[in-house]
């Protein structure tokens, strides 16, 4: 199997997994859903450490991943090279952002927002609330799959740590920092988080930083950096235009 084929097959496997998992859990209430995704993640991250699968997963030591030939016109060495790799990752991030932006503005996006507000009333208004949630779940998992695959190409190595809960919480913190109310927010958040993590990593305090960041942002800047900027912009235009309210 060529490297490109392997990537595509992996992507498809994740998509199918997401569809199955989503089919099972998309119906549940937000809290249950949160715990179930947590549980599912832990199942995967611990199952790679099973003795029986050692040959495939490398157990606790992880797997070195290399490939011959080219993927997207780049060699394995290119992917490991930060200068050559970052355009690929950056492009992928913005394409993902664009996809999310398109979905937000679409009818699916409006339905998802309304379901989040009041799922019961949506059913009482004739909507199937299960399908949109399932679709959204599969979509975001596919985006996550792409990022995971890029990570493997870049790092050349994968271990149970790559699957740990902290990866999810870091992503969550990054999204919060940028602001989840916009499509660009998580991208900006990812940037801020990475820079900050490097800074704190120098003092061996990455975990502490994560904890402090979560608390600080939720309490002080709940809409994130991008959200805060958008809010400020809205406020200033409102005071400039001076709309009259009935």
């Amino acid at each position, binding site marked *: 199997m060529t490297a490109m084929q392997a990537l595509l097959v992996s992507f498809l496997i994740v998509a199918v997994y997401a569809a199955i998992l989503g089919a099972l859990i998309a119906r549940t209430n937000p809290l249950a859903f949160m715990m179930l995704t947590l549980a599912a993640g832990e199942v995967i991250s611990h199952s790679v450490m099973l003795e029986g699968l050692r040959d495939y997963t490398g157990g606790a030591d992880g797997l070195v991943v290399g490939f011959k030939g080219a993927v997207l016109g780049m060699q394995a060495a290119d992917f490991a090279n930060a200068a050559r790799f970052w355009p690929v990752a950056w492009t992928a991030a913005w394409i993902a952002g664009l996809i999310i932006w398109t979905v937000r503005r679409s*009818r699916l996006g*409006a*339905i998802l*927002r*309304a379901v989040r*507000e*009041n799922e*019961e*009333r949506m*059913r*009482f*208004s*004739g*909507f*199937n*609330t299960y399908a949109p949630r399932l679709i959204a779940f599969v979509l975001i998992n596919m985006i996550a799959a792409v990022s995971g695959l890029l990570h493997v190409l870049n790092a050349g190595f994968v271990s149970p740590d790559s699957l740990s809960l902290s990866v999810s919480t870091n992503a969550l913190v990054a999204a919060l920092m940028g602001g989840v109310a916009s499509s660009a927010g998580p991208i900006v958040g990812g940037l801020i988080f990475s820079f900050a993590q490097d800074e704190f990593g120098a003092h061996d305090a990455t975990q502490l930083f994560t904890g402090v960041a979560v608390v600080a942002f939720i309490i002080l800047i709940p809409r994130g950096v991008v959200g805060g900027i958008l809010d400020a912009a809205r406020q200033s235009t409102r005071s400039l235009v001076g709309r009259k309210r*009935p």
Partner: protein
Amino acid sequence: MLKTEKLSVSYGPLQALSELDLEIDGDGVLHGVIGPNGAGKSTLLDAVCGRRRPTAGTVRYRGQDITRRSVAWRRRHGMARSFQRTSIFQDLTVYEQLRLVAQHLGDRRLDDVIQVMDLADYLDEKAGRIAYGVQRRVDVALALIGRPHLLLMDEPGAGLSAVETLRLFQHLRDLVRERKIAAVAVEHDVDAVFACCDKVTVLDLGRHLATGTPAEIRADRRVVAAYLGSAA
């Protein structure tokens, strides 16, 4: 239009509704349901609209047995419900939420609903920020979209003053007549019900007590004894 046959709903050991037979006719009828607390009025609506599975009995809607149908199916086929505890979309503007449902149900005459429920001045406001009385109107408006054939209203007057409730019921009566639909309104404010409803059903402890015109019910001795007597 609507017919329940021996409809029963129990929550564990508690029998909320016992073998209720109810019939609502079609065109232009506003049918009130009254009864003391715990009479099973809300449960009746829950069972009819599909929110709760009845433990026994059937619900027939326009001749069809719909007891097993989903809530969304019922709504798409013209059975709409409004809520006692206002259930709207706080973060969306009034217009956004009305339009979302209108698009889904294929209703092109959203302006009608906006006009009937007098919401024109509030369209761009986020629903979470408007006055409670207006929020209730939005709740009812959401149920009116898509030209439903049967409206189920759970205490539409809840939280409103007696005057506002009466006005709401008058509005409902006009609406029901004009559109030739049927509406069932569960309500605590008996004055509004007697003033505007064509027919009234009285429930007591989950059982059917009496059904008739407001005048008949007022005069019915059993009703007076069980309910009106204590409220008078």
